[in-house]
């Protein structure tokens, strides 16, 4: 009995010493996290605004139109690929996509030229052509 109690006390002591160290570890871990959180606690760069369903909707529609344009090119590519039906299908698809994309670009440039011509007709200075990326 005496031997059991002694063994138990030794075991308890052995467990409690690292447990004490672990308790300190746990505290230091939480202290370190707290310091890390505080050091990085900053306001975000982007300031959110109140949502406006109308403008959100406009963005969705704009995206749909943009995808629609790309979709036209993709559809043309798929149709061309289907028609080719052989090893040259990929090349045909790429070619068709390029043609469709080129047409879309030309259409956009034509619309801009039309707009500038209209401005000149009205006696206004023509706006500068958009040299940026068109998609």
């Amino acid at each position, binding site marked *: 009995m005496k031997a059991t109690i002694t063994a*138990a006390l030794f075991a*308890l002591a052995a467990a409690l010493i690292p447990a004490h160290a672990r308790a300190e570890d746990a505290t230091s871990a939480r202290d370190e*996290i707290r*310091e890390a*959180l505080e050091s990085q606690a900053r*306001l*975000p760069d982007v300031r959110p605004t109140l949502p*406006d369903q109308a403008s*959100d909707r406009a963005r969705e529609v704009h995206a749909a139109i943009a995808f629609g344009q790309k979709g036209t090119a993709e559809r043309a590519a798929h149709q061309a690929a289907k028609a080719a039906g052989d090893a040259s299908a990929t090349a045909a698809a790429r070619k068709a996509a390029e043609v469709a994309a080129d047409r879309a670009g030309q259409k956009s440039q034509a619309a801009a030229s039309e707009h500038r011509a209209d401005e000149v007709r009205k006696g206004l200075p023509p706006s500068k052509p958009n040299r940026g990326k068109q998609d």
Partner: protein
Amino acid sequence: MSKLLTVIVASLLAAGPADGHLLQGARAFRAGRYAEALVEFKVAEKLGAGPDARAYAAAALVKLDRPEEAVELFGPKPASDPVLEFYRALACYQARLFTCADRALEGAMGRFGRRVEEEARALRAQIKRTLSAEIQPEAVDWYLRHGEEALQAGQPVLGLLYAAEARALGGRRKDCHRCADADALQTKAKAAAGAGEAPR
């Protein structure tokens, strides 16, 4: 007796590895490696580090610009640690839950450190400016729509907070735009979240 000792020793040993992951997470967070911090905190939580580890993971999500997930992980109740409450407010703010953010900050003001207190004050000023605009019916509709979507996506806390935001903003209008819908959505979200109290 020996069984009791085994249980005590086993439970004491179990806490060890989780703390190691918490420390690793803290170091990664401080260094700005938030994705790594998120993983460490999640592992620590799985190893039994307690609810704090969950909140730390949510703070990492805020820094990763994933506010909706962070809101869900923080849960509807205020955090006991004011710094975590600051991050919960940031999550709400970035998810456009302005009244949620303001209430969180209001409840923790005076308990922050000096620098965080200044940030909190600045954030509250921004929120005040945002909410000073006239509330459009479309804005209330937006919150209700997103609340429904969050519930359908299995994010009841987010759904509840969107519903509460819709109610708060709708209530600022003379016509109390869709207040009844917001109340109904809150009831539905509370049932889904199992939360018996109003969110803060």
